[in-house]
């Protein structure tokens, strides 16, 4: 046995060793190959699961865009967020409403809504609590890394900014498990970008270098007409960035995404801009874009794309066309211009306008009646008759008629007028009177010197008189009054006065009607007949009728027996505030430019209570000191009343000197039977429909500028050209916007086919921060001088006949120091006079004391002051006046709150007109007006009609109105959103274990465009039953978990 072992072992061992070696080698090789295959397989599996996750994410994106297209593609849709509707988790859901539907949203754009069985209300109510961590069945689409830079430790407030959604299972087939196994999941969320403020816009006004903006001074008025873009920062609390900062101003030109905002220079080096941007994810973005279309429902002939009034002003009717054609009535600058100093260039802030006869037509040929004219306004009219019996200058047994006429005209505009040399006043419809039984026909018996046709008095209104010389270079300064009075004999022309008069007026005396006997002391004066009612005052020039003022119908009356002197008078004074009547609603009843004055023309009637006979039987139109407080009163220069003389110009209305860029500028239109500043304010009524039908591109109707091919901006620079042509042969040009300059083409007004509004803001936003940013868009440098033409009042202001006091300016100053970048003021400015703020002349030096100065200085400023107490330093001549930051904060808070309440009660605003209109919910005001009142921006006296002090300017340009706000932001306002941020999530799931293998997030910015989904659809008014206008992906990128 032992031998056997010893002899057989070596043989076996050799084979064993070799075998083992071979096996080991083979095992090694197999192991190596297996490992390699395993690694490769694992990598392939990982790649596959990642691919599946991405595919599911892309599926979610497709579903989201499809839902968006289906519900928000048509024009007649409003959008808003879920802030006012659902639980906290739904705050940032985006809802879509059919404008023809009710208060309930048509859908909410989150995953789950694509199911045909999903109820929108249930979807909203089922929103997940964003402050808790997600379960395996839900996922954050907006998480801590998006809304808080201190990731991992979000604050309680930051947690509320999250968006968490349940996952939607993707079912598939798995071997042995059927075809309904969960193989993946997805989730999507559509964020409403339009409710955020676009703080990444750069004011491009300085790039508009073509006519008529071809000078710096001209183009810098653009910033007064339209907002330079939303802005949100605070130097005091050190957050945000100042777009005016020089480096930021340069960078903003190249900013095209929200993520780039962190690259700007913060307001303070100690402030974290990334954190600021992150925590304002739902409030601020770089820029949104809006289609220039309304949300009118089917059946409305005006539904569809907005029309461009810059190209086709005639759409608003002939009166508006005449108004918009300012070159036709604005004096052309040239050497030899009669103004002093001569106005030789377009930059002059002393540009003058010629009188234009009225053109009256309906707005849009169907709306309220609109009148355009450039004409002085009759502010005070006084026609007094005295009848003397035998006393000097009358002779015995004769009744002598003494006629005193006082006419006061006012330039109501913020620009100077060319003094007319052919102005006359015509007074017709004079009554018959009976004095002591003797009948006198005041019309038929006029002396030849003043007799016009048909028994009217006709008198010239010269700009020179014996005591006053209006030099040839003079201008009818903005807001200034001039007066004409009778001075003596009937043949003598009216005497010209540069201001109101406070001395006794002379009169025309003419002997009349011999009587058989002298009149007894008890004789009475009776004014009879229907002619009493027809008194009409007509202003004419050589071209025709400038204005007509009709007296109302008055009953006949008989005066008491005064003795030997019988008097009666017609008098008219424009309604205005004063200390006497405490009336601060003077512009709330009628437009002073209106020709018909139904109640203001008055005459002496002892039976009417409340009228002092003093007004009629004294020899001067005004005598009481309290009348000196009148805003429109300019007392004649006397030392004793000098303190009241220098600051009483009252410019109220603007005439254009540049093309309009904002519909809000049309608040200066004059509508029949509407109080002034109607358009844009709640009392505009049907006039406010224009906001849903039109826009201003500012495009010139001729020429090749702007050169779109080289990125030259439109005058309304925030309009972005977009080529919606299917197969363009050449890049889009300005001629394409004008439809090949074919004015007869139906497409001609529709430059909106190729334009989108950058910075579009959905007024259904409930975000206070966004509203504050939007309301802060019209800003200027904190130290920016605001200079105007100068009237040197240091000499001769109190003396008659001094040239400079009579309309000659001595200096012409403009925006000489108005850089587009630098240090900005955080608070905004709102302009009543965006085009002519520089033209409301400044007095270089006035009286040392001017207790009444403020009330009228306020009108000349033409801007909203920043101090509700109106202290004088706020009106230093070279400063713009902005709201305080706290005021705009309060205003924004009020607006956001009111919008939220409105949404909850009746859904979003269906139109801009609805937003601007009065509502019983706000006590007859609009939402914005209610917010202004709630914010207590205007002085309390504005509401109570009781002036707080004599300085209270009443309804002046210092009173912040809705239309003032709308002027700057109208181009941006929309009642829906066209830009949406979609976030999607997809994951792959192991079919057997149901474990998540891989997940992927992506983000896409999608944009609705003017282009229709159906190429054969009508671009102007897409089919009601189709998918509307096409959404396109602006940007797309995959997100890492660290970005969620």
């Amino acid at each position: 046995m032992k031998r056997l072992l010893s002899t057989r072992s070596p043989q076996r061992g050799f084979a064993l060793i070799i075998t083992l070696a071979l096996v080991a080698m083979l095992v090694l090789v197999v192991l190596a190959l297996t490992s390699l295959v395993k690694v490769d397989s694992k990598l392939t599996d990982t790649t596959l699961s990642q691919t599946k996750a991405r595919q599911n994410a892309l599926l979610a994106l497709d579903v989201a865009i499809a839902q968006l297209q289906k519900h928000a593609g048509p024009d007649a849709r409003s959008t808003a967020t879920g802030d006012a509707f659902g639980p906290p988790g739904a705050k940032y859901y985006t809802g879509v409403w059919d404008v023809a539907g009710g208060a309930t949203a048509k859908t909410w754009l989150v995953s789950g809504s694509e199911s045909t069985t999903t109820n929108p209300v249930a979807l909203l109510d089922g929103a997940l609590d964003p402050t808790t961590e997600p379960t395996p069945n839900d996922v954050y689409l907006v998480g801590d890394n998006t809304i808080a830079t201190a990731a991992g430790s979000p604050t309680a407030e930051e947690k509320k900014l999250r968006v968490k959604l349940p996952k939607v299972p993707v079912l598939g087939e798995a071997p042995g498990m059927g075809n309904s196994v969960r193989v993946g999941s997805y989730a999507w969320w559509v964020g409403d970008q339009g409710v955020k403020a676009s703080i990444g816009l750069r004011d491009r006004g300085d790039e508009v270098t073509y006519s008529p903006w071809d000078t710096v001074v001209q183009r810098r008025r653009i910033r007064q007409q339209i907002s330079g873009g939303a802005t949100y920062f605070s130097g005091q609390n050190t957050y945000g960035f100042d777009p005016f900062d020089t480096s930021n101003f340069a960078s903003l030109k190249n900013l095209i995404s929200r993520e780039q905002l962190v690259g700007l220079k913060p307001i303070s080096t100690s402030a974290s801009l990334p954190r600021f941007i992150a925590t304002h994810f739902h409030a601020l973005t770089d820029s949104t874009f809006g289609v220039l279309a309304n949300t009118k429902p089917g059946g409305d002939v005006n539904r569809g794309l907005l029309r461009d009034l810059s190209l086709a002003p005639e759409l608003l009717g002939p009166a508006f066309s005449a108004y918009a054609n300012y070159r036709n009535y604005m004096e052309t600058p040239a050497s030899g211009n009669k103004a002093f100093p001569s106005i030789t260039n377009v930059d002059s802030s002393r540009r003058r306008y010629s009188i234009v006869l009225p053109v009256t037509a309906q707005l849009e040929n169907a709306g309220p009646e609109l009148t355009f004219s450039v004409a002085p306004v009759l502010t005070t009219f006084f026609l007094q008759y005295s009848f003397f019996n035998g006393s000097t200058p009358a002779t015995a047994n004769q009744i002598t008629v003494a006629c005193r006429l006082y006419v006061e005209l006012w330039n109501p505009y913020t620009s100077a007028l060319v003094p007319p040399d052919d102005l006359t006043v015509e007074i017709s419809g004079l009554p018959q009177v009976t004095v002591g039984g003797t009948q006198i026909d005041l019309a038929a018996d006029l002396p030849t010197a003043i007799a016009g046709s048909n028994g009217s008095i006709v008198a010239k209104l010269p700009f020179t008189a014996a005591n006053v010389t209006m030099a040839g270079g003079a201008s009818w300064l903005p807001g200034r009054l001039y007066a004409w009075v009778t001075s003596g004999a009937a043949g003598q022309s009216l005497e010209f006065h540069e201001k109101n008069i406070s001395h006794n007026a002379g009169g025309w005396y003419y002997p009349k009607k011999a009587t058989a006997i002298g009149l007894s002391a008890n004789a009475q004066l009776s004014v009879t007949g229907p002619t009493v009612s027809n008194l009409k005052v007509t202003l004419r020039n050589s071209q025709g009728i400038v204005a007509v003022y009709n007296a109302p119908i008055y009953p006949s009356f008989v005066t008491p027996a005064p003795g030997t002197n019988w008097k009666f008078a017609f008098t008219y004074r424009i309604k205005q505030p004063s200390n006497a009547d405490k009336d601060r609603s003077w512009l709330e009843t009628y437009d002073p430019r209106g020709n018909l004055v139904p109640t203001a023309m008055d005459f002496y009637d002892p039976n009417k209570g409340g009228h002092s006979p003093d007004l009629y039987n004294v020899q001067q139109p005004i005598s009481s000191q309290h009348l000196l407080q009148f805003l429109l009163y300019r007392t004649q220069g006397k030392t004793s009343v000098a303190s009241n003389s220098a600051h009483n110009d009252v410019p109220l209305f603007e005439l254009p000197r540049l093309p309009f860029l904002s519909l809000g500028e049309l608040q200066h239109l004059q509508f029949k039977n509407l109080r002034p500043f109607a358009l844009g304010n709640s009392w505009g009524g049907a006039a406010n429909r224009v906001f849903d039908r039109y826009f201003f591109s500012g495009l010139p109707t001729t020429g090749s500028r702007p050169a779109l091919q080289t990125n030259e901006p439109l005058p309304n620079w925030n309009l972005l050209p977009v080529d919606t042509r299917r197969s363009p042969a050449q890049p889009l040009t300005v001629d394409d916007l004008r439809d090949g300059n074919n004015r007869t083409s139906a497409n001609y007004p529709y430059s909106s086919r190729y334009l989108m509004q950058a910075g579009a803001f959905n007024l259904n936003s409930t975000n206070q921060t966004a509203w504050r940013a939007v309301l802060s868009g019209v800003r200027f440098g904190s130290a920016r001088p605001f200079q105007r033409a100068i009237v040197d009042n240091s000499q001769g202001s109190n003396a008659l006949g001094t040239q400079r006091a009579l309309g000659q300016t001595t200096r012409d100053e403009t925006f000489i120091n108005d850089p587009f970048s630098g240090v900005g003021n955080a608070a905004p400015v709102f302009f009543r006079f965006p085009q002519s703020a520089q033209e409301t002349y400044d007095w270089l030096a006035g009286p040392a004391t001017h207790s009444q100065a403020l009330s009228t200085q306020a009108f000349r400023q033409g801007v909203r002051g920043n101090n509700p107490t109106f202290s004088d330093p706020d009106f230093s001549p070279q400063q713009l006046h902005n709201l305080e930051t706290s005021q705009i904060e309060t205003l924004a808070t009020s607006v956001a709150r009111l919008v939220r309440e409105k949404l909850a009660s009746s859904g979003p605003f269906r139109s801009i007109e609805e937003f601007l209109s009065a509502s019983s919910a706000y006590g007859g005001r609009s939402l914005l007006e209610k917010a202004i009142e709630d914010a207590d921006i205007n002085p309390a006296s504005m509401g109570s009609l009781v002036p707080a002090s004599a300085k209270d300017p009443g309804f002046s340009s210092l009173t912040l109105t809705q239309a003032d706000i709308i002027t700057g932001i109208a181009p941006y306002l929309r009642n829906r959103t066209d830009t949406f941020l979609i976030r999607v999530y997809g994951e792959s799931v192991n079919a057997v274990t149901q474990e998540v293998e891989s997940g992927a997030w992506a983000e896409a910015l999608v944009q609705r465009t003017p282009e229709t989904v159906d190429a054969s659809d009508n671009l102007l008014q897409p089919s009601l039953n189709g998918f509307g206008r096409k959404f396109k992906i602006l940007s797309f990128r995959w997100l890492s978990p660290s970005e969620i």
Partner: protein
Amino acid sequence: MIATRKQSGFTILELLIAIAITLALTAAMLSITTGTLTIWRRVQGNFSASSQAKLVLDLLERDLQSAVRRNDANRWLSAELPNATFPGWVEEADPAAITKPVSAASLNAVPSAVGEGIAQARFGLTGVWLRFFAPDNSGQPVAISYRVMRTATDSALNDPPRNPRHYFLFRSQTQPAQTLTTGYDILATPYATAFARPSLDDVLADNVVDFGVWLYVRDSSTATGLTRVFPTAANDVTRYLGVGNGTAAVGNRFPDVADVMVRILSEEGVQLLENLETGRETLRPPSYANNDEWWWGIIEAHSQVFVRRIKLTGGLR
């Protein structure tokens, strides 16, 4: 005892048989091992090439999918076939060395044969130089450049020992602040300067001997719905500029779709190419008519081409 001795010894025959068996087994083992190693290397090479290609194509896809542009006159994208060396490109000093040829053999950007596509195309000496704007990892748009360059992994190229030259695919990008400052003309001087000579830090993949792109715009008049705008011909070396508001008529529309290809050498191919390009291998096989064909012959035998179609999603027109 005798019997014991006989049993404990080996006959010559036994020894011979044993030696033969051992040799046979050894040969078999060697053969198996060699074969295994060859397979290993091939699999490894394929795996490496696939991994590199995945990395390259995934990045390209991410970048091109999210390429940004606006509807303006800026040049948002540039694609060109320089077919010439540029600063940083290293050629061999040895005249016997055979490197990538600058000849028609290397330039056939649009193969004409039926059934041939971008995978069969050759994009010149340096491949396509593709530049455009896309978001970086933080989401901020930056200028990005893709191009192939032949260089060494050590900047001291001429110091002994000689570093091997490789064909690298570079992906260079600027800083976000640069975009805010310079804007979106991809040919602007700061970008041209930044991309003129890629840094070794920007190497995306090794052994990429060719990189090509075909760009398309949507065109409903064609059967495929697409029209290729770059390159337009086999030897098209004209730079294509994707202008934000470009139109088809002027040939500068921003592309809607891109086909991209990368040709990646195997490890074996790398070695063979090294021998060829350093002059160690000078005996050209008779099957090749000239050195250019020889170079491409090695490449085509020892490389893989990876292709992907990418949709450029962003932008308004």
